[in-house]
């Protein structure tokens, strides 16, 4: 909680620029039902202070520490496959067993790796990211209600 104390004063000065939603003067929740947040709850958050806070920094760093290497790796892995398929078709034709060749196995491995990354990202995010972001969100939304 105390992390955001310094931001309060800051927030009031930046309120004006945040008050109008990006699509114009009509508030974003005008078309939605009662469950939508009240203007005062979201418009007064000092986003820059939040971004500079330690909690947010942890979330950001954690997110980056998974997503950055995994995205880099799967893109390299995919283009390795493409380059080999285009420039070394002979290698892809080497038999593994019978008519099942390297190319087919390489291709199926692309599927396997995609499934594996998707499942592990989901699991990782649920356990390592969601609790942190939930806590911060509750605090930010709750903190504005007073």
């Amino acid at each position, binding site marked *: 909680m105390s992390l955001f104390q310094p931001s309060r004063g800051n927030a009031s000065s930046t309120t004006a620029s945040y008050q109008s939603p990006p699509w114009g*003067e009509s508030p974003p929740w005008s078309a939605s*039902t009662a469950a939508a947040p009240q203007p005062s709850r979201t418009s007064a*958050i000092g986003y*820059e202070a939040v971004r500079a806070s330690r909690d947010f920094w942890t979330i950001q760093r954690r997110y980056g520490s998974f997503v950055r290497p995994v995205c880099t790796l799967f893109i390299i892995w995919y283009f390795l496959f493409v380059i080999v398929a*285009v420039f070394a078709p002979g290698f892809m034709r080497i038999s593994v067993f019978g*008519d099942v060749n390297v190319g087919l196995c390489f*291709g199926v491995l*692309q599927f396997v790796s995609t499934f594996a990354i998707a499942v592990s990202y989901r699991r990782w995010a649920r356990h390592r990211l969601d609790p942190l972001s939930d806590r911060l969100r509750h605090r930010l939304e709750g903190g504005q209600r007073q």
Partner: protein
Amino acid sequence: MTGLAATGAPFTVGTPALNFGIFAFFVVVTLVIAVSAAGRNRSTTDYYAGGRAFTGWQNGIAIGGDYLSAASFLGIAGIIAIYGYDGFLYSIGFLVGWLLVLMLISEPFRNTGRYTMADVLDLRLKAPRVRAAAAASTLTVSLFYLLAQMAGAGALVSLLLGVRGSVGQDLVVAVVGILMIFYVLVGGMKGTTWVQIVKATILAAGAAVTTVWVLSRAGFSLPALLQHAAASSPAGNRVLGPGLEYGVNTTTKLDFISLALALVLGTAGLPHVLMRLYTVPNAREARRSVVWTIWLVGLFYLCTLLLGFGAMWLVGGKRILAAPGGGDSAVPLLADKLGGTLLFGIVAAVAFATILAVVAGLTITASASFAHDVYAGLARHGEAEPADEIRVARITAVVIGIVAVIGGIYAKGIDVAFLVGLAFAIAASANLPSILYSLFWPRFNERGALWSIYGGLITAVGLIIFSPVISGASSSLITDRHIDFAFFPLNNPGIVAIPVAFFLGWLGTVTDRRPADSARFARMQVRALTGVGAERR
């Protein structure tokens, strides 16, 4: 299905009448679903985002339904049936791109946007000109993709209903257009989503059954299936490795790399996929939906691999190429070989339902972008009444339907998977750079966004116009060989247009002297990663 068989039986087996009956059955079922699921569609959130009431798995399957177009089902299997392994390369690109959507796009998008892609850019940059640019590229990509689907519809139906003349085909394209307008007008996003869910389920089940059937013919042995397939192809064992279609010379190789780039980066820029992320209540469900989509799409593409080789073996490339619709007819012909005319009719009707559902999804995306971004956001400065906005969206849907019908009539005969590859290239160059920059680059600004969107769009479309797609080759749109302005040698512009768009986004940003708006970036990041202030139901 047994009831269907009973009603279908009195017809002479193998006549277009049976196929027509099955078609009509599917159309009626999907129409009933669209109408009954539609609800009232009173607010814009209902009409554009299905009330944000879908669960992760429902939306995941619906995204799969939007994504698995006729190009996937018929096109990829057809390429595999004719060129073997090279078709497999397509499906891998189509699948792997989803990881970008999952990890970089889905949650931030759901957290920071409302209905369209332009919402996200506008939250970050607050610039009407950027919203206009994003709307322009959304409309272009949707129309291109629509064109591909409509072209496929004409070819498919000519095969199924025995419609040979071009007037008959044009009529079919027109009927598809009318049906799709109806789905969108009546169903809104909610009805369209349920049509996608039903369609994706039938499509996956149909593909799975046919695949198991093919495998059983080969004694459930993959090596045996491959061996039979290779033995029945004139190219022999070469079909089991890459290079038959793309390995001809350096140009075709580069063309393939260009396509691979477009496929893997294009998925994350497809407006009708991005818009689906808003139909769930929160970012977590958006993430869950994409994981569902990855499973559905991946398993489906594994099936198409076997279906393609199965068609190569049981139907044969020569017969497939001779059939109306060419490679796109491989799977229906395979179904005919396996299960007779009834299975043929069912598979064909599934493919038809696929085209209908995908065009409906594209139409609602394009009409939402026009009504929400251009009409409400720009013309009315965000002060449009929801009822007016929905009315504009509906009128737009009708206009888009007409444009797509006219375009589809001109584009028929072009390979569907190939046209979709072009749509992916445009999406990857016009949309993806500005999306990624606004989510993750603090300095990104208005000029960078405008340069990358318009630059990517113009480069991609321009290179297509000056490519062999339009003129100068035997497969060109302009059949007169004397007209040749194809100075760009590749069919797919991705390898040039995508880097150009990323570069222009960077260049535009760094040449703009105004200081970066760190407050807006802070808001973007905090909202994207925590979900503060995200749109609720």
